[in-house]
């Protein structure tokens, strides 16, 4: 357990740094889709709920787990769906050299 714990802390630390570096470079233009995307990714918590329900250890665990799966799955489906809808709307007026407009 203690070695697992240390591993887990290392993973958390590295992922947090990667998160900071990657997200710092996201254009403010896309902050709303970014939030709905991270929301969908965060719903990966559904895997914990799936194991909880599947193991059928206690009736209350199944009930709580089923509600948890429903809540998280709606985030997965709704989150990816709306992020895609938003991103499809972002169009450039000059597809060839859209990058050079900040001057």
């Amino acid at each position, binding site marked *: *357990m203690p070695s697992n714990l240390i591993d*887990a802390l290392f993973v958390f630390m590295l*992922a*947090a740094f*990667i*998160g*900071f570096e*990657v*997200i710092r470079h*996201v*254009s*403010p*233009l*896309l*902050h*709303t*889709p*970014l*939030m*709905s995307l*991270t*929301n969908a990714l*965060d719903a*990966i*918590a559904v*895997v*914990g709920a*799936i*194991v*909880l329900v*599947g*193991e059928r250890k*206690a009736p209350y*665990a*199944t009930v*709580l*787990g*089923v*509600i*948890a799966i*429903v*809540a*998280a*799955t*709606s*985030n997965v*489906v*709704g*989150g990816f*769906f*709306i*992020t*895609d*809808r*938003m*991103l499809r709307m*972002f*169009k450039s*007026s*000059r597809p060839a050299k859209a990058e050079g407009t900040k001057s």
Partner: protein
Amino acid sequence: MNAEFAGSQYLIEVIYLVASALFILSLKWMSSPKTARHGILAGEIGMVLAIGGTLLHHGIVDYKWIIIALVLGSGIGIPLGMVQMTAVPQRTALSHAFGALCVTLVGSAEFYLQTPHIPKFTMSVLAMEVILGGLTFTGSLIAAGKLQEVLPQRPITYKGQNIVNLALLAVAIALAVYLVIHPEAKQYFPAIVGIALVFGVFLVIPIGGADMPTVISLLNSYAGLSAAAMGFVLNSKLLIIAGALDGSSGLILSVIMCKAMNRSFTNVLFGAFGQVQTSAAAGQEARSVRSATPEEAAAILAAANKVVVVPGYGMAVAQAQHKVRELYDVLTKKSVEVRFAIHPVAGRMPGHMNVLLAEADIPYDRLIEMDDINGDFPQTDVALVIGANDVTNPAARTDQSSPIFGMPILDVDKAHTVMVIKRSMNPGFAGIDNPLYYLDNNLMLFGDAKQFVGSIVKELGGH
């Protein structure tokens, strides 16, 4: 542990590893609108792999309820993915609530399954998981209610509010510490969850509409951290990674929002911005404002070379973005250069204005961030402010007594002519008077944003 058993575990871990990499790539590709849609695909593949891999888990003996719940959740998710773009802030708040609900429920179930034999570290992160999850759940529901306007947008405050809030949090933490030492005292667990739920409500009710971008970002961060805590409890590196990514994303956005308002976290959470009642507004004697008709406004716009439109939450409320697009079209046809100045906190969530304007088919390279466009205002012929107020208030630069002093603003007052579309002279959400309206180069265009822009377009021969 037999060999076959271990084999499937390894396979699942490898699948999770690939999913984690895809999640990181997914966020990396969000850096530009050109690659962003690859990002979604990467995220989707990662998610499908992770869920599929989990179903291989050796401990799973019953699939019936899993399938039913997955189908039900998808059924709820589809309409949530189809909401109007103007409703995106409340949808986002609602999805933070759902994410936090999942984490809190799984955490609670884990507690009752494992008690009384819970190692101290597991109990600590489990307590963190349910406290963060619980407060994010109710806090996000309140935020969604305020954004949907089923709850009053005005801050709800009372004397000693901060003390009550901090005391609640302190009790929850004290109980959590007690449980870490005595994990068999399970009667205290519901109290921790209950206090976290109440705390979430109390945390968000004093926060006003204009502070929503920060609060949503902060709740996003909490949702991520609670998922990471759940990863520690379940010893799932995939969850820790996804939670850490979401947590840092929310934190970065909160910091950007706070900077854009020149305020600190504590000030947003405990400051109750809308309650700052300045006597300044009442003390003004009737200063003169100049107003203009749609015909006059159209003539000024048609004569301009460079126009900068400054959209705000009022544009979203009036659903004026499509009329604004028509104005953009007709002016562009007359070879007027039209750009849009986006303040980071314009609207009710980070990036809100960009999404609304993109929905109205305005090319994203016309949407310019505050720091990139502020230098251009002195060369701008017309700055047209649509439904924005505080983010254009020059008092933020000059008046030390103003509650928004020091907040970075869009320097519209430096344009040759400023036109402000506004329903009336009522001060904005924060109740702060805007000296911009009394400047010599300012014209007030009184009316509903959608109708007024429509009339201007008609004058310009658009429709």
